[in-house]
């Protein structure tokens, strides 16, 4: 191995090469004092050199910690494994399901552990909601098909509101309690509560990018101390990095380093890393286009990139890139219980909460009509529910069946609230 490519301090390296040493093997068998005399490096530096020589000779090149290893995660020879071993490793790992069965299906069972996933979207598309849902879902006990893991949440925007986590956690706990079938699950339910969910979320607030970098530098140690952590959420990466940066190349470099740190953490500690990103407009050929922020080279950082967006009144999630899944677009909705499947039934427009309601007398007449239409659609939705259940019965997992049931219930709840909204409109 060449001296110039080992991780010694550059000053030492230049001394060594000036003295005629080019390969580590040439230094083998020399005493520290000999090296000092030959090259003029200090005694301590000579010891480090010899350490490097020995490392290079024994373990197939021991990398002493990584630039990103931090806590020494990557000490030892580079681990080589065959694709077959990797496949077994992948198959033994569970993924984190999102409670949106369509999204889970396209991702092959949910968000993969050991990979980095980026969620991009304009404000209000549900990035944070999906994160919060995953934060709760990863804690679902193993006997219910979850991972029973802990979570680290790095909040940079201040949008991690406990109130909302409690909502989602409550819904998930209730959902699981309806599924209890055997004793194991009954026992698991005694400890699975909103309180325990909250106690298994480790929260960090980072106020600027330096704090974020600092936190990521220390996280490998934290993950070693908490081996049950299966999910790391950073909401969002874009927020601290889009402020205060005059020098773009510096930003790109730091982001690339951060990406490598995240990937190293995901692989060595076996956690799913979920990061959110904002959108920005890019002018191209005179027309503006919505693209994920932080530039082109950041796009390579996440292994999987999910895009959330509005299309008319529907919410759509698109897999923009993923090495293991084809690109696909699915619908979802955000209910009071969290991130869920979109209702399959075609909904009349008036069922959605409106963003603008400049209503006149004609508008009132409209709402009368629509409430009549609503009754119809309720009936059809009931039919749908039946068909859903039978479809679910065909699937062997009762979980998805229950999920379906749940989402239908919530949909019904929404319908009720909409009716009352319509009623209110009438009275006003």
């Amino acid at each position, binding site marked *: 191995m060449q001296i110039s490519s080992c991780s010694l301090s*550059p000053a030492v390296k230049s001394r060594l090469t000036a003295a005629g040493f080019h390969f580590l093997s040439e230094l083998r068998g020399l005493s520290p004092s000999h090296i000092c005399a030959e090259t003029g490096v200090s005694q*301590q530096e000579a010891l480090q050199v010899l350490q490097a020589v020995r490392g290079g000779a024994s373990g197939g090149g021991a990398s002493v910690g990584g630039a990103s290893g*931090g806590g020494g995660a990557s000490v030892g020879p580079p681990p080589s494994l065959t694709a077959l071993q990797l496949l077994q490793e992948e198959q033994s790992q569970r993924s984190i399901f999102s409670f949106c069965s369509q999204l889970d299906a396209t991702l092959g069972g949910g968000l993969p552990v050991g990979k980095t996933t980026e969620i991009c979207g304009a404000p209000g598309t549900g990035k944070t909601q999906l994160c919060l849902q995953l934060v709760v879902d990863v804690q679902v006990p193993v006997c219910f098909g979850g991972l029973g893991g802990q979570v680290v949440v790095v909040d940079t925007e201040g949008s991690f509101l406990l109130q909302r986590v409690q909502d989602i956690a409550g819904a998930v706990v209730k959902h699981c309690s309806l599924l209890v079938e055997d004793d194991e699950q009954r026992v698991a339910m005694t400890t699975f509560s909103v309180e325990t969910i909250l106690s298994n979320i480790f929260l960090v607030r980072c106020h600027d990018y330096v*704090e974020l970098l600092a936190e990521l530098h220390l996280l490998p140690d934290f993950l070693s101390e908490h081996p049950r952590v299966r999910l790391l959420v950073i909401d969002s990466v874009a927020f601290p990095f*889009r402020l205060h940066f005059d020098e773009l190349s510096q930003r790109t470099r730091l982001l690339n380093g951060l990406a490598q740190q995240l990937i190293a953490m995901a692989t060595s500690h076996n956690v799913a890393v979920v990061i959110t990103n904002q*959108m920005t407009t890019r002018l191209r050929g005179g027309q503006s286009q919505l693209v994920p922020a932080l530039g082109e080279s950041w796009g390579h950082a996440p292994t999987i990139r999910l895009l959330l967006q509005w299309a008319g*009144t529907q919410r759509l999630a698109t897999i923009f890139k993923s090495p293991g899944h084809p690109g696909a677009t699915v619908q979802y909705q955000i209910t009071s219980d969290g991130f869920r499947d979109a209702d399959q039934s075609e909904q009349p427009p008036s069922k959605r909460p409106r963003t603008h*309601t400049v209503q006149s007398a004609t*508008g009132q007449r409209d709402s009368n009509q629509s409430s009549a239409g609503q009754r119809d659609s309720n009936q059809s939705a009931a039919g749908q529910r039946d068909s859903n259940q039978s479809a679910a019965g065909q699937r062997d997992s009762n979980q998805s069946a229950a999920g379906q049931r749940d989402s239908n219930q919530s949909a019904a709840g929404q319908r009720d609230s909409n009716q009352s909204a319509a009623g209110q409109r009438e009275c006003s």
Partner: protein
Amino acid sequence: MDWDQLELHPRIISAVRRCALSVRAVLCVSAPDLQRLSGLSRSDTQQLLTAAATACRRHAPLPALLSRGFQSSLRLSVGCPILDELLRGGLPAEGVTELSGESGAGKTQLALQVCLSVQYPTQYGGLDAGAVFISTEDSFPVRRLQQLIRGQSCLRSDVPPSLISSLNFSDRVYIEHAADLASLQECVSRRVPLLLARGLVRLVVVDSVAALFRSDFLASDWLERNRQLLTFSAALHHLSREYSTPVLCINQVTDVFSSSDSLVPSSSTGTPTVAPALGLAWANQVMVRLMMWRLQGTVSRGDQSSAPRRLQVVFAPHLARGGRGAGVWREGVRGLTETA
């Protein structure tokens, strides 16, 4: 932050001193370059980085259960139980809330009302401190504020009248005028922090953010405008976090003709709709986005009548998309009860 406070070998400290790097700057230099600059060995640089990172972070990851007692669950009531219910208690104590709407929708009315409700003790939904109102558009509506103060006993029937009369509302609303961007930046970076640091104030209202950013720039200057906008919002975020103070920004709206950019759910009717001004750059900085609409018709309450308004949640991490009807009365903005 100084190097001497870090637990490091003096040799490492003197080496890093020599290359004149601050604690924060060390984290932004790549590891090989740090070795080159400081001449330290690899293990020393690792120690240095770990020590610097420890110094930069405020606390290790804490279970969310423990942070429940913190400020994050604190809410500032807007002064009406119906609207508070929509907002699940009111404005979050940390974070930037945006309220946008057409002129005459009642944005300023609601903002003034929050300036008063912040002065109540916490058990009545306030934060027991004053408010600073940064006005960039018109002159501050002093007379309307006086009218609202007189109406407090009527609006806040939940608060004992003796408490209301003991509060000196108008003395605790600090008014700032900013006629251009420079004075606005000056205001949020110098004068407002002073008020907040002294504990006189725990609410910042900006009425409106759009006015200056829309008027001071030509369409071609959008890069510079975005930069200024980010600087401004960074200042607001800093204030909100540092003093756990709600920030309420009032924004104008613009017409949206094409809904192709899929930023917002498009309307079903297909008519030109309106969206909050300042575009995506600003929207990314907002945690809670509310909109207000003025509807057709009239509603009446006692001897008063008002045009019906609607307060709508566009997005928020903790709120469902939904809305409530409201009316603007002599004593303030009240939600309409949603009974059949």
